[in-house]
C-alpha cells in the first residue's frame, strides 16, 4: 500500500477505533452508571491509599483545604500564580501521558493547546458557541491531530529524535496556518470581548479569577484521576510495555505502533481543554505567542523537573517551576521599566534551559521520586503501589 495511504489509514483507523472504544465504554457506563461510578471512585480511593504512606496521606489532607480555600485568603498576585501553576500541572499531566507512557518526547504540545484555544475562541466569536459545548469539537479535533502526528512521527525506523523534530515542524505549520487564515484572525490573532456583565458565569467561563481558579483546580484534579485510571487500565499497561521495551512488547502481542498513536491522541485530546481555558482566561490569542518553542518547553518543564512517567511528578514540577517562571518575567519587566539597557525577556527561556540541563544531568528521575523517598511519602517499590 502506498505509504501516504498507510499513514492516513493508521491515523484514521486509530482515531476511529479510539472513538468507538470510547463510545462502547460510555454506553456500558451509562447502562450501569451509578455502580460503575461508585466502583471507579472506590478503586481510585484504594489506589490512593495504596500509593501513600501515612505521611503522604497527612500531607495530602493538609494541602487539600489550603488549595480549596485559596481564593479566600490569597491576594490577586498569588491567585494568578496559582492559576498558572495549576494550568501547567494540567497540561504537564497530559504531556506526561505521551512521554511517560509512550516514551516519546513531544516538543510540540503547544500545537494542541493552540488548537484548543483557537477552536474555542473562534467558535465563540464567529458562531456564538460557548466554551464547554465547543469542547465537543475541539477535543476530537485535537485527538485526530494527535493521531496524525503520531502516525507520521512514530513510523518504523523513526526514533525519538525524529519524533521531536517532527513535532517542531507541525508547530511551525500550525503557526503559519493560524497566522494566515481569516477565521483565526491572521497575524493579529483573536481577541475575546470583555464580559457584558460582571459576576460569575461558569457556563460561559466568564467571571472573577476565583472562578477560573476553581475551574482549573477541578480540571487538574480530574486530569490526575484520569491519568491514574489510565495507568491501571489495559491500555495503560500496553503503553507502558511499549515504552519499556518495544521489541519485547511486540513479542507479547502489543501493537506498539498503535499504542503510541493512541497515547498521542489521548494526550492531545486531554490538552485541548487547556487551550480553551487559556483562551477565555487570557482573552486574547496570537499565533507567534501560542505556537512557539518556548511555550512547548514551558509545558514539558513541569513533568521533566517533577519526574516523567510518574503520577504526581508533573504536578510537583509545575508548582515549582511556574512560580519561578513568573518571578523571572516580573524581574525582567521591572528591570526594563527601571531603565535597564538590556531587554531581559530572553532570561526566562534561558533559565528554563539551565533547569532542563541541570535536571537531565543531576536528577534524571525528577524531583518527585527523590522527594517522595526522602520524606517517605510513598511506600518503597515492591509494596505494589503506583509510581
Amino acid at each position, binding site marked *: 500500500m502506498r505509504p501516504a495511504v498507510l499513514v492516513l489509514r493508521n491515523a484514521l483507523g486509530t482515531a476511529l477505533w479510539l472513538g468507538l472504544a470510547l463510545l462502547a465504554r460510555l454506553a456500558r457506563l451509562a447502562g450501569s452508571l451509578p455502580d460503575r461510578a461508585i466502583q471507579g471512585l472506590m478503586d481510585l480511593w484504594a489506589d490512593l491509599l495504596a500509593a501513600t504512606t501515612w505521611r503522604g496521606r497527612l500531607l495530602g489532607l493538609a494541602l487539600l483545604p489550603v488549595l480549596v480555600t485559596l481564593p479566600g485568603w490569597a491576594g490577586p498576585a498569588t491567585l494568578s500564580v496559582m492559576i498558572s501553576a495549576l494550568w501547567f500541572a494540567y497540561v504537564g499531566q497530559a504531556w506526561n501521558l505521551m512521554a511517560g507512557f509512550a516514551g516519546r518526547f513531544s516538543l510540540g504540545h503547544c500545537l494542541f493547546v493552540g488548537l484548543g484555544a483557537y477552536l474555542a475562541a473562534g467558535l465563540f466569536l464567529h458562531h456564538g458557541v460557548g466554551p464547554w459545548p465547543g469542547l465537543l469539537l475541539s477535543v476530537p479535533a485535537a485527538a485526530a491531530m494527535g493521531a496524525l502526528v503520531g502516525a507520521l512521527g512514530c513510523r518504523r525506523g523513526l526514533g525519538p529524535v525524529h519524533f521531536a523534530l517532527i513535532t517542531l515542524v507541525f508547530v511551525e505549520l500550525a503557526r503559519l496556518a493560524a497566522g494566515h487564515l481569516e477565521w483565526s484572525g491572521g497575524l493579529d490573532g483573536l481577541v475575546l470581548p470583555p464580559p457584558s456583565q460582571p459576576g460569575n458565569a461558569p457556563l460561559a467561563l466568564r467571571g472573577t479569577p476565583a472562578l477560573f481558579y476553581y475551574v482549573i483546580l477541578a480540571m487538574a484534579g480530574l486530569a490526575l484521576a484520569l491519568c491514574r485510571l489510565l495507568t491501571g487500565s*489495559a491500555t495503560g499497561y500496553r503503553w*507502558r*510495555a511499549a515504552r519499556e521495551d518495544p521489541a519485547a512488547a511486540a*513479542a*507479547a*502481542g*502489543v501493537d506498539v505502533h498503535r499504542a503510541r498513536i493512541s497515547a498521542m491522541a489521548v494526550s492531545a485530546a486531554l490538552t485541548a481543554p487547556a487551550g480553551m481555558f487559556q483562551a477565555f482566561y487570557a482573552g486574547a490569542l496570537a499565533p507567534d505567542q501560542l505556537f512557539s518553542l518556548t511555550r512547548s518547553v514551558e509545558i514539558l518543564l513541569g513533568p521533566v523537573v517533577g519526574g516523567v*512517567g510518574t503520577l504526581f511528578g508533573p504536578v510537583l514540577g509545575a508548582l515549582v517551576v511556574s512560580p519561578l517562571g513568573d518571578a523571572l518575567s516580573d524581574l525582567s519587566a521591572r528591570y526594563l521599566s527601571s531603565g535597564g539597557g538590556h531587554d531581559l525577556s530572553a532570561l526566562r527561556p534561558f533559565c528554563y534551559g539551565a533547569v532542563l540541563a541541570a535536571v537531565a544531568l543531576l536528577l534524571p528521575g525528577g524531583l518527585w521520586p527523590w522527594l517522595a523517598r526522602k520524606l517517605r511519602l510513598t511506600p518503597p517499590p*515492591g509494596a505494589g503501589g503506583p509510581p
Partner: protein
Amino acid sequence: MTGLLALEAVSKSFSGVRAVEDVSLSVPGSAIVAIAGPNGAGKTTLLDLIAGVHRPDAGTIRLGGTDIAGLPPHRACGLGIARTFQRPRPFPGMTIEDNVVVAALLREPEMAIARRRALEALEPLGLAAACGLPAAGLDMSGRKRLDLARALATRPRLLLLDEPLAGLSAVDHGAMIDFLRALKGRRGLSILLTERDPGVAALLTDRIVLLDHGEIVETLSVQVPA
C-alpha cells in the same frame, strides 16, 4: 509438509551476509524440536524470522497452513506464536506480575481476569510469591522464568525458546528441563528451541536439527532418556 509449523527454503541475508540459507523444517503439533548449532549459526535469526522480527528474503513460513512470513511480531503473537529471548528482556520498570499481565491482556481484555491468568502462569515457575517485586531485581534464572511466564500467558500454539538453558546454574538447569518436558504434555503446545550443545538438546527432545553457517547440516532423531 504437514504439522503446526512448516518452513520451506527460507533464506535471509543482512547486508550481504547470509544468515540463514535455504532452511526447511517442520514442527508437528504437541512436539519439541531443537535447533542445535554453534554461535553464529543462525539459530536466533531463524526464530526472529518465524516470530516476525524480520521478513525472509525467500521461502515460506506457514503456521497451521497460514502463511505468516513477514507478519509483524504482535500479529504473529496473536496467531499463537510466543517467544523468549536469548538474553531475557523483562520490562524493568514494571513489577513481575505486571510484566505477565501485559501478555495476558492479549487474550483476556478484562484486567481482573488477565491478572488471574498472569498469576496462573507465574505459579508453576515459582514467581507467584514475589510477583509484586520489580522485575529489574531478578537474577538470570528469575528473568528466564519471567520471560517464559510472559510467553506462556499469551496462550501460544507454538513456543519459540532461544537458548532457554543458557546461563542457568546446575539446579535451575534441571528444574527448567523438567518444566519444559512437562510443557510438552500440554495439549496443543509445540516448542521450537535453540541450544548450542546437541547433547543438552537431546535431554529435551527426540528431534534435533543441526544448523551451521545458516544451513541445515543434519536432522537427528534421538532417543530421549527416561
